[in-house]
């Protein structure tokens, strides 16, 4: 158990050290979110309706952008070989890396969501629900992203399948996340959707590390 925590801690330290200062992640998030009004026009109430979708897409994007290189770098510089034959279970390493990634790349977005929602004139309460939905949904994005990144290594020679497998896995999270915020906006109960998000997260917590670890081992051949 202490070995577990120690391992996680070390993975975290490395990931945190490598990852950008949180400010950059937040800035990126705000930039993407601020982009949409240029595209759909400045009508306040239209923007308000778009806000959840926009914020969710921005979150998804920053997860994609930052997770892809997580394993790739280790793969290219040989670190991955050592992790694969390292003393601790690879699933754990994956979990730790993903957790670290979520803390550095996703959590800041959850925190920044209210600021962004000012641009969209969201009510404080709607923003709160949005944050909750993000907090529940983004971990799933990180986990699924980890699987994708790992599989992509094995398929360096161009398996078109990988994204086709991975991206659809994002859809449920995205849709339930958006709908939860939607419901909150419309004054309905967001609970059912949040429950779905939680369920997806539990499932992914179990599946993703196994799948990702398998992908990493496969990439050694």
């Amino acid at each position, binding site marked *: 158990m202490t070995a577990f925590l120690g391992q996680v801690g070390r993975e975290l*330290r490395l990931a945190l*050290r*490598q990852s950008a200062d949180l400010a950059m992640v937040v800035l990126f998030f705000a930039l993407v979110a601020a982009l949409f009004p240029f595209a759909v026009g400045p009508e306040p109430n239209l923007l308000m309706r778009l806000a959840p979708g926009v914020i969710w897409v921005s979150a998804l994007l920053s997860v994609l952008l930052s997770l892809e290189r997580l394993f790739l*770098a280790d793969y290219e*510089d*040989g*670190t991955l*070989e050592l992790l694969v*034959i390292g003393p601790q279970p690879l699933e754990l390493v994956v979990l730790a890396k993903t957790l670290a990634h979520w803390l550095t790349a996703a959590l800041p977005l959850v925190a920044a969501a209210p600021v962004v929602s000012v641009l969209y004139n969201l009510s404080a309460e709607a923003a709160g629900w949005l944050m909750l939905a993000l907090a529940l949904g983004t971990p799933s994005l990180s986990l699924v992203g980890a699987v994708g990144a790992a599989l992509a290594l094995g398929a360096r020679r161009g398996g078109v399948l990988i994204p086709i497998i991975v991206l659809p896995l994002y859809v449920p999270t995205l849709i339930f996340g958006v709908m939860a915020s939607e419901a909150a906006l419309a004054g309905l109960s967001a609970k059912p959707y949040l429950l779905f998000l939680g369920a997806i997260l539990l499932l992914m917590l179990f599946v993703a590390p196994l799948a990702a670890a398998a992908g990493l081992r496969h990439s050694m*051949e």
Partner: protein
Amino acid sequence: MPELVGRDLECRRGGRVVFRDLSFALDAGAALIVTGPNGSGKSSLLKILAGLIRPSAGTLLRDGHPVEEDRAAYLRVICYLGHTDALKLVLTVQENLAFWNRTNDPARPAQALDVLGMAAFADLPARLLSAGQRRRLALARVLVSAAPMWILDEPTVGLDDQARQALSEVLAAHRAEGGSLVLSTHQAVDLPAAERLDLKAFAVEELPEMVW
């Protein structure tokens, strides 16, 4: 009884047989030098010993038991150094090393750097290191691995004479403590009483089949 035994090992890479019927035995404190022309399978063999890839035939025995029986236990006793240095260029030298420190002694990394003449660079980001300095840092990782069996793939690449000297002292000390050692190289290395394994003998004459 020898510590590590390879029996009739065969290795396929990319659908082609690299070597076959390869056997060897390694005692504690002994050293095995793997030689052979480029592409003869040195790295492949070392990767098999490191548990990175599985032999397509034959078995690997540790203390008489097949390694597969308890893979985790086996992986704990080995330390592998490949062609790549496995450095994080954005981290400083000591950050890189501290991450791999498997000894319980936090002072060991500094000692290892000192032994390899890298103490002065401890706070430099690895990106700024020269090729040989990077290799030295990769070797320092082996020193802090606390593993009794070292598997080193061309450890001397890019090292200057002084560093090579330091390395052979390190290796001697490791063996003196009863540690064993497998290393591949193209250069002359001075390892007293080391066995040699020339892979040319096990090569399989066969053009590489097209790999899609």
